[in-house]
């Protein structure tokens, strides 16, 4: 099949770029070799490509790495709002490979939280806080007492008599003593 110049010129770029099938490549090559007009155009396109690359490479060769990297790292570490920095930090910290520390940390935090009442008198955790119903175990006047604080104004007290005889002997107070609350 004879290939005309118009068809070849339309495919010249794709041919030079190596984007045509083997058969098309061969067809264009044979035409270009025997056609001064298409051959001249091919050379022009090649020079255009080389000139463009040469100009841009010449420019890029003058760009040193250090100042370029400075510009990039300045952006990376620029002073940004705290929440943006926190987000960036979290993005890097909470990757699966780095989450190994999180499990023991959570366990330690929970243990510390539930042990605080051992160290600080009056510290309450969980349901003991606020106005909800609560139970306290205290030693008031030698008795074991359970106190239910249902609200700011309503408190129910229950005396617990575990060892009735010992309690009576040691305190000398009646088991049914009135609440001082």
């Amino acid at each position: 099949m004879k290939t005309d110049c118009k068809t070849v010129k339309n495919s010249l770029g794709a041919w030079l770029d190596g984007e045509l099938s083997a058969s098309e490549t061969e067809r264009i090559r044979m035409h270009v070799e025997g056609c001064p007009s298409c051959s001249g155009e091919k050379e022009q396109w090649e020079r255009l490509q080389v000139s463009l690359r040469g100009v841009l490479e010449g420019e890029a060769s003058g760009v040193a790495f250090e100042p370029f990297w400075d510009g990039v790292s300045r952006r990376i570490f620029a002073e940004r709002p705290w929440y943006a920095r926190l987000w960036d930090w979290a993005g890097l910290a909470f990757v699966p490979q780095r989450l190994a520390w999180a499990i023991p940390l959570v366990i330690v935090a929970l243990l510390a939280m539930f042990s605080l009442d051992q160290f600080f008198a009056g510290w309450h955790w969980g349901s003991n806080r606020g106005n909800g119903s609560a139970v306290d175990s205290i030693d008031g006047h030698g008795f074991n007492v359970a106190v239910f604080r249902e609200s700011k104004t309503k408190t129910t007290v229950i005396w617990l008599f575990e060892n009735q005889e010992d309690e009576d002997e040691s305190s000398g107070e009646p088991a049914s003593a009135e609440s001082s609350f």
Partner: protein
Amino acid sequence: MELSDWELVQRCQEGDAAAFQGLVARYYRKVFMVVLGILNHREDAMEVAQEAFFRAYRNIKGFKGGSAFYTWLYRIAVNLSIDFQRRQKRTPTEFRETMDELIDKREGAEFAKDPYVDFQGKELEQRLFAAINELTPDHKAVIVMRAIEGLSYKDIGRILGCSEGTVMSRLHYARKKLQEKLGPYL
């Protein structure tokens, strides 16, 4: 042994900033060339290329390796350049001044010693930049990526989010336009 792009990316994803620096060192010139080809302005190209790497760093956790790292990086750089150019359209006078400055800075460094060849080279360079500047950002992007990196139509299509056929027709159009403008100098 030199690490592959993907290995460096994985290290970045684990928070290794030095690995990212390695990626920047590997690609900064190429990214700069692509951006310069689209913007035709050295300072703007520098800013946009640096911003492209910053965006890549910020989003590197989202890169899953489905495509080559450089196509992902070029996509960021090309999209930023196109957006930047659409926002800051320069006047022809501004453009000519910028290009003249740019070429004058390199006077004597790149061209042959023969004054005639030197003159011809500078003339071609100036006209080349001027001709490129008349193309649309999409046409600039295809011709620059093909010229610099020799990227396949498939890769260029991936970067620009268009088909190989569109890349081929944009390249053909862009080359024809440049040929018309630069014919006597080629």
